[in-house]
């Protein structure tokens, strides 16, 4: 009789005890917030009891993966305070002793370890499946060996230097060609002037260099 009463009490008390373990702002519990519409838009699935069961299973998997020795079950994950937001609290009980809660720090470690798997199970991301209090680790920056800007800089400067050298060399060659051409022409002109040929007419007399018009435009 006594055994039967104890058994009844256990049946009634267990869920009540479970309720005491899991409550809003539980010291060893975490609040989970899920934003289905933000993540999936039109393809958002409905959050119902089956999804909650799936969550319990995923959390049990995460605990098993982290602790490896202990066999966590769906019953060890207790959920409460569900809202339409969708948000709820959960606590994790030890598989050996259902009244004992796993400390917050251990739960956090387990979640961090399997965060990627948990997100993928629900087709969500760090932002849309939030464990309030567990911050996602930021991705390590990708550091390439040479910064990409240096490569582009190198290409541009190489092209510019090549251009400068090409233009300077061609200027020099042009000038040398002109000088060679000019010395041949210049001699003819001077000879013509000395012989007194102006405007094609032979003048008598010698050409007076004193009257050459060599600075028509005044300098400063």
């Amino acid at each position, binding site marked *: 009789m006594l055994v039967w009463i104890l058994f009844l009490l256990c049946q009634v008390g267990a869920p009540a005890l479970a309720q005491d373990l899991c409550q809003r702002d539980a010291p060893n519990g975490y609040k989970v917030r899920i934003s289905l519409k933000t993540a999936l838009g039109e393809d958002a699935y409905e959050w119902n009891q089956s999804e909650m069961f799936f969550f319990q299973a995923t959390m049990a998997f995460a605990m098993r993966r982290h602790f490896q020795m202990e066999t966590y079950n769906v019953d060890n994950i207790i959920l409460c305070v569900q809202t339409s937001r969708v948000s709820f609290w959960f606590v994790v009980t030890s598989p050996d002793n259902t009244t004992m809660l796993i400390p917050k720090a251990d739960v956090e470690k387990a979640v961090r370890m399997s965060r990627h798997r948990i997100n993928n199970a629900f087709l969500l991301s760090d932002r849309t499946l939030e464990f309030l209090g567990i911050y996602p680790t930021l991705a390590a*920056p990708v550091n390439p060996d040479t910064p990409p800007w240096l490569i*582009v*800089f190198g290409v*541009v400067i190489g092209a510019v230097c090549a251009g400068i050298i090409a233009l*300077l060399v061609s200027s020099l060659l042009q000038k040398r060609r002109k000088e060679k051409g000019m010395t041949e022409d210049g001699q003819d002109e001077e000879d013509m002037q000395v012989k007194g040929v102006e405007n094609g007419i032979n003048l008598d007399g010698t050409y007076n260099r004193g009257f050459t018009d060599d600075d028509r435009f005044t300098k400063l």
Partner: protein
Amino acid sequence: MKNKLPNPGLDDRIPSHQELERMEKEEAGDRPKWDNKTQYMLTCVGFCVGLGNVWRFPYLCQSHGGGAFMIPFLILLVLEGIPLLHLEFAIGQRLRSGSVGVWTAINPYLTGVGIASLLVSFLVGMYYNTIIAWVMWYFFNSFQNPLPWSQCPVNANLTDLVSECARSSPVDYFWYRDTLNTSTSIGDSGGLQWWMVLCLLCAWLLLYVCCLRGIETTGKAVYVTSTLPYVVLTIFLIRGLTLKGSLDGIKFLFTPDLNELMNPSTWLDAGAQVFYSFSLAFGGLISFSSYNSVHNNCEQDAVIISIINGFTSVYAATVIYSIIGFRATERFDDCLEGNILALLNAFSLAEGNITEGNYAESLQNLNGTFPETIQSLDLKTCDLQTFLSQGVEGTGLAFIVFTEAITKMPVSPLWSILFFIMLFCLGLSTMFGSIEGTVVPLQDLNIFPKRWPKEAITGIVCLVSFIIALIFAQSSGNYWLALFDSFAGSIPLLVIAFCEMIAVVYIYGIDRFNKDIEFMIGHKPNLFWQVTWRFVSPLIVLVIFVFYFVTKVSSNVTYIAWNPSSEDFPTLEVLEYPAWIYVIIFILAGVPSLVVPGTAMFKLIRRCCSNKNVYGAEVDTVSAKVQMFTTKT
């Protein structure tokens, strides 16, 4: 009208009309020439259309009553811009020389005007090319996905974002920290930033390769640098119009507020914008038009280029504000989303309960029932108009606002590359005119030996500019650049422009000028030109100059600095300049302006001193006694 100051010996200093005809026919002289008219027009358009059209005009337009700003802008374009442009083109084409040569030919005491143009072109060229170096830095960094300014970097222990970036924004951080590595004040120089030095070197080398042989090389380069900006602007316009919110931006830009027309500063800003936008008084335009044939129709050119410049300003403003409208809408949506999420989380309501549509009334309901909770949430006020009017100008627009907008567009690296190529081309084509305005006067002044080739002189100018421009590659470089921008490129130009007009109209003589134009283009300039050259344009320039001078002198000169440890961070801190900066300000603004009367005084003193030795200097020759007079002053 015989309003003319006495100017003896003018005919000896300038080529006469017959000589000009002869030079034209024989193609004598080793003066460079344009390959064709297109090159000349593109070079002038490139010189006039610069960064100011893209980042100064849209801001002025938006802040001075939108569409209403067009009225003072267009009126002053016609009364101030076109006459001054025509004047510079005509005088350059007639006297066939750079700025120093032209003013010296008109009157030797006016050489100072040319020297002032030289100094201003040199100083402005220095800081303008530094902006091009910044553009190149952003261009080099655009070849990666995601763009480096789209996200904050993480700190050393990978726990959180870098604090300076988290408190401001990724674009701010990339500009002030990664690019400039800015110090907290102008006095704190902070040493040279090696990546900036490299970009500056690249900018100056690129400029050198384009200006190597003067207009022979720039004439080819302008086919690309003057046309590409229009192509890119059109691409951005088409892209912009397909983005959400772009029409809000354009509407915001052009919504007229006619009350602004009563505000005198609207008219003054319009006048200043027209003046600076036309790159007048740099000497570059005079040089460019001196390479034209004598009978080129400079009147038509002036009108066409003015119209193109005005049209480009309006077109660029439309494009810029379509993108700004998009950015403002994105920001507004983000802000609203953040608020809605906060409300949903606080009250555990299902997603979709509060949307953009019912946000206002939902907030009111919740505030009525749970005011303390709403208070503790600290919701931000989201107002589209505020985001739209965060219109920035100058480097802030290009490197902060626009780059942020680009990160929100799909395929961001492509848009970034296009945008910075456009800015680069706009800046480079303006630099061609700057270099022309520096190198040609140096040649005219015979500072370098005549047999030195143009390549060497251009090389020296670029090298010296690069070395001095290294001050802009320091940590405090941004503040130095703002200083140069405010003082080197403002007051001296107004002084020079005023002197130019007085020189041509009253010293050269408006009658002679009218005859020259009749000789060159076949008909005398009509009444419009007469009135504007003689009275209207000089008056406008004088008014703007007085206003600027009074404002600058009477107000406390301050600058804005980026200081992560200031209270209002990320708002920029307003600091006063230290006392020794006033010396620099005087060198930047005062020296070019004072060179104009200074050179005149110098020549006067020199003439008076040598005059004493004239009388009594006789030379005994074989045939007769010849008295020597000084003919060259």
